[in-house]
């Protein structure tokens, strides 16, 4: 029996034949190719510093696409039978959720300031309208919007 057959038989008995071995490597982002959903990273942990391509998505698609910052740290899953994939990021340039045709997320505090300003202006008009004869409107004053009403506190973002 050849050595190869012997090794294969032992692997088969041990149930480890064709088993994948997965490693987690901490890497630094060198370049990003967003259209092709890949970036080139260099490993910091592991046996040696090697440069390789890692996937930003499981396959090219629209789902969640995160663009890591060049020079930032990422953790990459590295295995025998699949291409390396980034699983966590230290610094991000952009996120895209199902494409980007609706533009960026709303900056809540700025929007709230604008809404409150509009509400205050309307309230002034309503108050003034009530002083003229005959009164211009019977609408009641708008209660100024507060942050808790319109914020989803579980998902936050920054610039």
């Amino acid at each position, binding site marked *: 029996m050849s050595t190869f057959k012997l090794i294969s038989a032992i692997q088969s008995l041990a149930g480890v034949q064709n088993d994948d071995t997965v490693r987690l490597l901490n890497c630094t982002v060198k370049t990003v190719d967003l259209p092709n959903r890949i970036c080139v990273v260099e490993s910091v942990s592991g046996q*040696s510093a090697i440069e390789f391509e890692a996937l930003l998505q499981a396959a*090219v698609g629209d789902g969640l696409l995160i663009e890591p910052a060049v020079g930032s740290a990422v953790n990459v899953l*590295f*295995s*025998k*039978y*699949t291409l390396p994939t980034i699983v966590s990021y230290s610094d991000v340039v952009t996120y895209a959720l199902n494409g*980007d045709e609706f533009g960026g997320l709303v900056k809540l505090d700025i929007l709230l300031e604008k809404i409150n300003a509009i509400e205050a202006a309307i309230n002034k008009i309503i108050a003034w309208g009530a002083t003229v004869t005959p009164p211009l409107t019977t609408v009641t004053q708008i209660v100024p919007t507060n942050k808790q009403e319109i914020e989803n506190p579980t998902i936050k973002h920054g610039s």
Partner: protein
Amino acid sequence: MLRPVTNITISQNGAGRNLVLFFDFVTSWEFSNNWEDLSAKGKVVFPKNIYVTEQTTLKRYPLFGVNNNSNIGGFNSEPLIKRGDKIKIEAKYIFWDENLNEYETKMTAIVEGYISAVKAGLPVEIEFEDNMYLLKKTPMPNRSYKSTQTIESILSDALKSVNSKYQTNFRVNNDSQTNVTWSAGLLTSENETIAQFLAKLKRDARLFTYFRGDELRVGRTVYVESEAQTKYFEFQNNIISADLEYKRKDDIVLSAVASNHIEETVGTTKDGKEKKRKKRIEVLVTFANGADTPTWKEVKQGDKPDPNTDGERRTFTFPDATSIADLVEKTTALLKKYYYTGFKGKFTTFGTPYVQFGDNAQLINKKLPEQDGIYKIKGVAYSGGVEGYRQEIELDYKLNV
């Protein structure tokens, strides 16, 4: 009567070591060569009392035993034979006709390799390997190769460092162009030798590698048909012993589960790129009941192949298969080679006719002519010495089905 002659030449290697030692006598030697094992290995056992002739000065050195100053082990000073020295084994027969006229067969170089170990015990025993020995001593560069780069080009680059370090002329056979597109782990070398990299390709991607002379061959096709020679072996004649089993096709059930994961385009992303999705394709192909064409069944995502209740089941991964039909075709081609009425196993013959794996063996049985057939040789274990010169030939599959 055939008288075997074995010539062993050991060329010292390394700084200040330039003796060429020649032996024309040996207790025993053996060398096993097949494509499944990464390196072809062998060993030589010398008699307890032997002199060796240095080829340039013709000075005779006692190898050990009669002269206490002989230094095979190198414990006190530079040894005569050392790990890394080159070794060449050649063999031939001398024979006589009824009028005692002497003839000889062609001297055949069985192996040219490197000594990998010199055993400290008595009698002196040395182990050797083919050129793969140098690849076990040479590191691969720490890097990850792109999946678009062929294995052949990766190895060509790697062999440059072997050639410059050891003044060899190794090259890669470029007849095949092999890609491993679905894995970066396989194409990454980290603190490993070239041989370890090749072992990984063999273990995880079933890419076999072997040396034929100075040529390193790699790829999914092992044999080079253009160089295959057919040699004749006859039962009750030059087949000394056989561990062969003759099986009829009707009695064999041979099946294989073959798979791959492919990337398919499923539309366009919002930024205009081809949208991709990974898909596993898997089939079960079965040859049974003597049929020339197999039955096959697609194993759908989430399903398991039918259990193997009878016969031999193999598992293949075809990284270059692009569809179910392609998978079936590739599996059928591979299985069909092993689905035949004929011999399986190995047999022992004399040192001549000399064969190497990849050659073809035409087996002739005059008493049972239906057992005649031509087979591909998978491996040969050569042996020689005082007990005669032998080849144990392992068959791979039948060619004339």
